[in-house]
Each structure stands twice: as C-alpha cells, then as structure tokens.
C-alpha cells in the first residue's frame, strides 16, 4: 500500500521547510538534503532580491539567518516567487538580533513598497471630463484614489537617505542623519521611485488611500486647508499620484 499522495506531499514539505525528518525512505537518502539546500537557497535569494538594501545593511550571513527564521514562521504562499516577502519588515522589527538597527524594519518597508510598485497595474488616464460633471457643492464628498503603483511609507528615521546611500556604487553614508521621513513611492516611466514630501501632504494622501472623502482628507492641512487643499489635489492629479475618483451619488 503506497502512502496517500496528499499526506506524502505535506510530510515532504515539512522536511523541506521545517527540516523535519521524512518517512517513508527515499533513495538515495542524502537526496533530501539536495532538495532542502536548493529550496532554502531559492527562497533566500528571492527574499534578497526584494530586499537588497536590507541585506546590505546587515550582511549576507545575518540576512540568511533572519530569512530562515522568517520563512519558517511565514512560508512561501504562492507559486510566484515575486510574492514572497510580505511581512518581512514586521518580522525584522521584532527580531531580537536586529535591535541595534531600529530603522531596519522601516528600510524593509520602503523596499517592499518599491517592490509592490514595480508589479502594480498601470494607471489609467485621469478622467477630467467626469470630474467636471460633479456639481461643485458635492466636491467635498468625492473619494479620490491613489494610482495603482503609488505606495506611502513613513518613518521616524531618515530611511530614504539610508536607502539612497546603500544603492550600488554608494558608500553607505546617508546624506541626512535625522527623520522623520514621509515618503511617496511612485512609478516614473516604469521605474519605481521614492521621494519625501511634507508631513501634511503625506497625511492628505494617506487619508485618500484610506478612502476618506476630500473634505475629510483636507483636514490633514489643518488651518492651512483653504490655501493648500486645491493645490495639493491638482498637483497630485497632474503628477499621477491621484489616479481616479468615485463621485458621490447625487441622490444622497
């Protein structure tokens, strides 16, 4: 009687991903280690390709051990390796050996935002004609949405400066040594790019990303709302950060 396939496959994955022993025996026995090593190397290399700066900051050996522990807790959940690595930032924040680098989690968060932006849907042209049809008294109720490749990251640390200083060819010395950073990731001619914006603009964009109506999102500018909201919105649309909107239902 052969082992049921479903049970065999679950046990084999335990052997691959959790270094568990495997029965029934396979021939040759040392072949399990060939697969284990290959699986671990593939997964680690996929994670490293999403987090190159994180790896540079901690070194290959440290990264490999962090990757091993993270992947043990959160195994790959897709046959597409480009999906691997969501949640690595949160793991690093709780990772005791990384405590001396308190910004490491936020650097990883920025790298994941860039990674996601790279694979996101292309933005459609903004529908100005439809916007013009919304009656002015309803403008405050419009819910604008960020374009698909846009991501927002904030940090108490100067993570964009750290990230820039650790690009290939740079010596790792950040151009600034203080945060906080309010970062917008966008795609420019297909290449994801990160830049800092002022705090209020970031909070405004973040409110839009949460689905807030324009009047509520504008509260991010506080007392300066009247001067700044219209400009922030028109610049957001012109630069492609704001990609679409849902008009309020005129019946309500």
């Amino acid at each position, binding site marked *: 009687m052969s082992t049921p396939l479903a049970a065999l496959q679950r046990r084999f994955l335990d052997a691959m991903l959790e270094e568990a022993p495997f029965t029934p025996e396979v021939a*040759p026995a040392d072949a399990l280690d*060939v697969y284990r090593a290959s699986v671990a190397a593939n997964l680690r290399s996929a994670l490293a390709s999403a987090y190159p700066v994180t790896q540079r900051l901690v070194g290959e050996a440290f990264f490999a051990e962090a990757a091993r522990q993270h992947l043990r807790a959160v195994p790959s959940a*897709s046959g597409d*390796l480009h999906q691997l690595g969501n949640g690595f930032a949160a793991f690093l924040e709780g990772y005791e050996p990384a405590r001396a680098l308190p910004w490491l989690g936020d650097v990883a968060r920025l790298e994941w935002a860039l990674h996601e932006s790279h694979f996101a849907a*292309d933005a459609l042209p903004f529908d100005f004609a439809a916007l013009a049809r919304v009656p002015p008294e309803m403008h405050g109720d419009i819910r604008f949405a960020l374009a*698909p490749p846009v991501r927002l990251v904030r940090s108490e640390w100067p993570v964009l400066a750290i990230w820039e200083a650790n690009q290939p060819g740079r010596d790792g010395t950040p151009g600034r040594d203080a945060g906080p950073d309010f970062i917008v990731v966008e795609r420019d001619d297909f290449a994801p790019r990160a830049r800092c914006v002022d705090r209020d603009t970031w909070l405004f964009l973040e409110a839009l990303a949460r689905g807030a109506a324009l009047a509520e999102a504008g509260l991010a500018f506080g007392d300066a709302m009247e001067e700044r909201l219209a400009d922030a919105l028109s610049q957001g649309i012109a630069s492609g950060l704001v990609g679409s909107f849902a008009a309020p239902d005129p019946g309500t």
Partner: protein
Amino acid sequence: MVDDGAGIGLRAPHYRAILEREPALAFLEIHAENFFAEGGQALAWLERFRERYPLSVHGVGLSLGSAEGVEESHLAKLERLVRRFEPALVSEHLSWSAAGGRHANELLPLPFTREALSAAVANIQHVQERLGRPILVENVSTYLRFGDGEMAEHEFVAEVVRRAGCGLLLDVNNIHVNARNHGFDALAYLDAIDAATVGEIHLAGHEAVGARLVDTHGARVAPEVWDLYVAALARLGPRPTLIEWDIDIPELDTLLDEAAIASRHLQSAADMRERSLA
C-alpha cells in the same frame, strides 16, 4: 505556430540586445511567473517581443502534481497572461511544489503511483479547460525516488500525457540527468515516447556534484546530451527546441551559438525525413 527551429529563454539581461539585433530564432520562451504583474515594465517589454517572435509561455509554479489541485489564483494569472499574449506554446512541469497552502517553489518529484498519475491528469485537464487550449507538460530532473513507485518514469510520463490529452515537452537534458542519477537507459526512455505527443524539446546544461548530476541550467549543453538530442530527433523528427539558461546567464552570443548547433541538428533531421519520404 512555431517552426521546428531553435529558440532561447528570454531573460532580462538580453532584452535590449535581442531588440537591437533581432537574431533569427524560431521562438522566445518566458517563465510565466515573471510576467504575472498587473502592469509595469515587464509586460511592456513583452509587447515588443511578441511583435517580433512567436512566444512560448513556460510555467514553473503551478504545481500540476499537487494532490490538492492547482491554486485557482495562480491559474487565473496564467490565464490572463495566455489570453493577452496568445503564445504559440504553453507548458508546465510534471512535478509538484505546493501542499496545504505552502510552497517550496521547487520542481519536486512525484511518486510514480497510479494515485499521483490520476491527480496530475485531473489537474492538467482542469488547466486545459481554463486556458481553452492544450498544454505541454515537461519531464523534470529528479534526485530521488520514492520507495512506493508502481511504474518506471517513462511509463508514468507517457501515461499522463495519453490520459490528459496534453502534449509532451521533452527535456532531453533531464532524461540524461535522471538516467545517470537513477540508473536507467536513456535510449529506452526515448523509445517509449509517443512521437506524436512531443510538441517541444528542451536542452540545458547540467553540472556534476559528487556522483550526482544536477540540472543547473547554468552551463553549455553537454556532449552526451547533444548525442541524446540527435537520437531523439531521429525518432521524433524535428521539433521546436529551446536552449535554457537560467543562472550565471552568459552573453547573448553564447546562447545564440548553442541555438545554432540545435538548428544544424534540426536541419539534418528535417533532411533525413525528406529523404525517407522521397
């Protein structure tokens, strides 16, 4: 349609050179998962290649041999890619990589049992229904055998293809690697293959690690594999043939050299067919 000529795997370091030089190739093969994005640069590149070459979409992550079936979310992305780019060929591996929602992202070996055979056949048929077209499945290189096998590898492969109604992507390097690692006769394997089912051939480099051959896709095609390829062409006739190279990717010219060797063998096989028909 793809001519019975040679193609190469399309890898990012060669994008610009291929567009600039437009080398004569029968087709370009992509890894499906490299183009699963909803938008962005990779898909824009692929639009440019499709204007110049027939495409072959080769999946690595569908896990056709999973007892629990293939993941619908993965299949949906494959379907989106295939319907958009209408490739000449679509293929996946006769292996598995996932169970219980966890993925090893590796081409893991199946036991050669009737149960595994049925699971693979059901999954392949499901994929073909979703895509609305037949696919090719590839024999993979393996480094172990499960103790409860009920048939030989070539029987398993041929029977999956026959029952699923799919085609075979015959990887000649993988036959050579497995023949050496598991001690069977590569030519007897070829003899067991139904020529009418073979829609494509793969060639790649392997490396010896100790007593084991490892299918690395990181070297030139070995002389023994070229010999086995010639033997395969004598049995099958010419077939679209891919040069695969996935790690330590060399200059484009190295791949084109390998493709040119395959082309010469394909031409000889075609000439031989013509003479035998004359």
